């Protein structure tokens, strides 16, 4: 299965959407009036970075979770082809800008005596 690639325009559209959420972040941090004159740029930068990190974490986690749910309850072992039941599993994954708890499914093949991770969509590639 080939991974769908997004065009630069599509990605820019998403970036603009997220940029609009900056107003919400500012409001949450400093109220309706925004930061006072005593707030330096370093502080504003910290807030923006934390928000961006949270957005990355949330978006990745949501997408990974949704993808994991699409993995069937049973998957063939990559070595012997024997169908094996899968169960949910999470692991810490360092991605660009955030570390997320990756939701995935794990299976154990009794014949091969090893665990395997059925690929969810295109996440097997890359």
């Amino acid at each position, binding site marked *: 299965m080939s991974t769908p690639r997004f065009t630069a325009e599509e990605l820019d559209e998403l970036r603009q959407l997220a940029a609009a959420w900056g107003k919400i972040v500012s409001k949450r941090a400093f109220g309706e009036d925004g930061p006072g004159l005593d707030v330096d740029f370093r502080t504003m930068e910290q807030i923006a970075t934390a928000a961006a990190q949270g957005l990355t974490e949330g978006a990745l986690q949501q997408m990974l979770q949704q993808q994991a749910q699409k993995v069937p309850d049973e998957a063939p072992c990559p070595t012997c082809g024997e169908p094996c039941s899968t169960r949910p599993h999470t*692991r810490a*994954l*360092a991605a*660009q800008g955030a570390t997320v708890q990756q939701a995935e499914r794990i299976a154990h093949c009794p014949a091969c005596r090893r665990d395997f*991770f059925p690929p969810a969509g295109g996440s097997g*590639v*890359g």
Partner: protein
Amino acid sequence: MDEHAFSSSVVQRIVTAAARFSSFRDATDAVRMTGVSISENQVRRLAHEVGRELIARRDQKVVEHRRRQLEPRTAVVPEAVVVEVDGGRIRTRAAGAGPGVHEAQNKEDKVACLATLKGPVFATDPCPEPPDGFQCPRRVRRLVQQMKGPAGEAAAPENPDESPPPVPPSDEALERPRWSPERLVRTCVASLETSASFGPMMAAEAQERHFYAAPRRAFVADGSAYNWSIQRGYFGTFEPIVDFLHAVCYVFSSAAAVRADEASGWSQYLAWMRACWQGRVRDVLTELDHWQVRLGEPPPGEAATAEERRDPRRVVAQARSYLGNNRDRMAYPRYRREGLPTTSSLVESLVGEVNARVKSKQKHWNRPGGAESILQLRAAVLSQDDRLPRFFAERPGSSFRKRGTLCHKSEGVAAQTVA
């Protein structure tokens, strides 16, 4: 994603840092600065793992090329191309012998530069007289010292404490105004394998870049025999050109050896160098033959001391041998007319860039393959063909992940003592 607890793009950053920075320690610091928590061992292990995958991919392409199944990855046929090859030396140690350096040995790494060129062809020689750079005593002496080999001191075995030889001045520095072709896109092939294996690797890369279809093709190297074995075997349709700078070094050394004083030696050098520049190598050889008769044949056996290496009989014999073996590859006026390069400065400079990663006093790579993987990574980041991003875009994932945490135990893949 693969079995590591890093996303593919993070792994790409980690191995890029491992290839770009001069040591794994520096690369680890750089990666940590991007907010990724990682140990030096993890960086090292990931770099070697990806390097090994690049080796496998490279070898697969060699097989495809041999079976005539390797397709060019571009439809564009370059106007002019050059393949240049050179070697360096890296320090190695016995693997599995515990901490520290055991049984240190120097191994030769081979580096090839494949470049597309842009430049005009000429009806007549665009530069019939040697540029000023070759007529300036200070610059020529420095060049000869840098190139070492032909200067008479080169045969000395490598001192483990010596610093890497500096890159000789490029065409651009030595020659103005510029008539030589301009480099467009460069890619790199590097390996510790023998020339019998290295030739097919170069050929596969040339095939992928459509080099064999280019109307103007050149193969530039110094006089080492294996270079010309590769040329005959895999680049037979390329114009073989021996690096002019190496020829200059032999001419300078022999001119200094046959004349009694510096001034007459310099005059002799100018005459012989000019003859080589103008393609009259046979005239120089005739004169060197006369000098050999006058001085006598060199003593048998290898020169053991610096004084023996400076023996005029040996110096003249070496120059005769070098120029004699390469005279058919020294038609420099024709190469200039055809817009082809006459020096191997592209690969000399590339070797310097490769060495900046793999060679230093502290670096000893495990034999046999410790440096091979890092050479692949270094070659990838020095190539202007997005080799690493392409590799990661196509890199398959693994169904079997070995670990589920960010903390991995060190495996026995430490490739060097301090790097």
